[in-house]
């Protein structure tokens, strides 16, 4: 079991059900969670809160897409460098390449992973 005690994670996911399930799992692992349901809300949260230890970011989001969120993060010195794991049900090579080129630490396809596997992947990034 991972221990995210004292770690702040932002989960950006427009599917409320998926967001709740994953968030609950991360809280079970002592993470301090915030959730955004679209790209616009995510950027607002990132700019108005202390720096997060990790962002779990979906790509197909309402209002502003995941890649655009990453561009906004890279353009803002205060939040630039926040570790990002892309968590999407996309996963074509060009999506992965773009995500990595924008600075994602990992690109995970949600549907092929269990909740525990996602928690493990997050633990690898925020040791």
């Amino acid at each position: 079991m991972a221990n995210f005690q004292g770690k702040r994670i932002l989960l950006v996911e427009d599917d409320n059900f998926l967001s709740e399930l994953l968030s609950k799992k991360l809280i079970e692992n002592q993470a301090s969670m915030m959730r955004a349901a679209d790209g616009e809300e995510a950027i607002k949260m990132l700019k108005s809160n202390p720096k997060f230890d990790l962002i779990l970011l979906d790509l197909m989001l309402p209002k502003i897409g995941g890649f655009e969120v990453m561009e906004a993060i890279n353009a803002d010195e205060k939040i630039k460098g926040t570790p990002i794991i892309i968590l999407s049900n996309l996963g074509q090579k060009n999506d992965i390449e773009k995500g990595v080129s924008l600075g994602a630490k990992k690109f995970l396809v949600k549907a092929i992973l269990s909740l525990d596997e996602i928690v493990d992947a997050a633990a690898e990034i925020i040791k």
Partner: protein
Amino acid sequence: MSFLGIFNKKKNKKFAATSNEEQFKDTFILALVHRLRTPLNGARWALDSVIGSETSEDKKKTLNEGYNKIIDAINTVNEILKVAEINSIDGFTLRKEKINLCLVVDDILKCLDFLIKKNEITLEYDNKCDPLTIYGDKEVLDIGLSNIFDNAFRYSPKGKVIVSVSKEGSMVKIVIKDNGIGIDREDMKHIFEKFYRGKNAILMDPNESGVGLFSTKRIIEMHKGNISLDSEVNKGTTIEVRLPID
């Protein structure tokens, strides 16, 4: 995000200046698959959460069965997505590197060990083959070759599969020979077509997608190789793949 939302995003990005029907169809499949993954994802994680919690053994067993069905569906969706990707002219570029085909075959056999055991297959394979290096995309070749091995093991229950990897002139030759259900003459003409399945294969397992050998052929050809197949009903199938040595 809705299916149409995803479809339009992908369509506009890729095919702004074209109305090519094949590309349109593949983009449609890509968007559909992405959309299907989300509810399957939800069902998987929901069961994941319940199975992990305290519940009776009886219920756990039922939930596990449901979970495995969802994993099956996710795998089928992934397979269809991979074919659409490979078939999509703009969307797929090979990431080539030097790879030892013997190690690729070793890895595939390890991954399919569950199927070998489940179907009680006798496997003959000399894994001490000399390094045979080709220049290719390991991940993509893995998918293409896995389909052949998967078919051999799936359609030869309690049978025998003989695998060899050797050098033949300027090519590496991989031969996969099984003594399974085989393919009839008429089906053989169409076996590399997208979504085509042999009649006896459908009877044995109606749930497969029929995209495997189509994508395999395409992958082999993308690597400037070739694939040939010979088969007889109830006697078995032999597939030969040739890929150019680096």
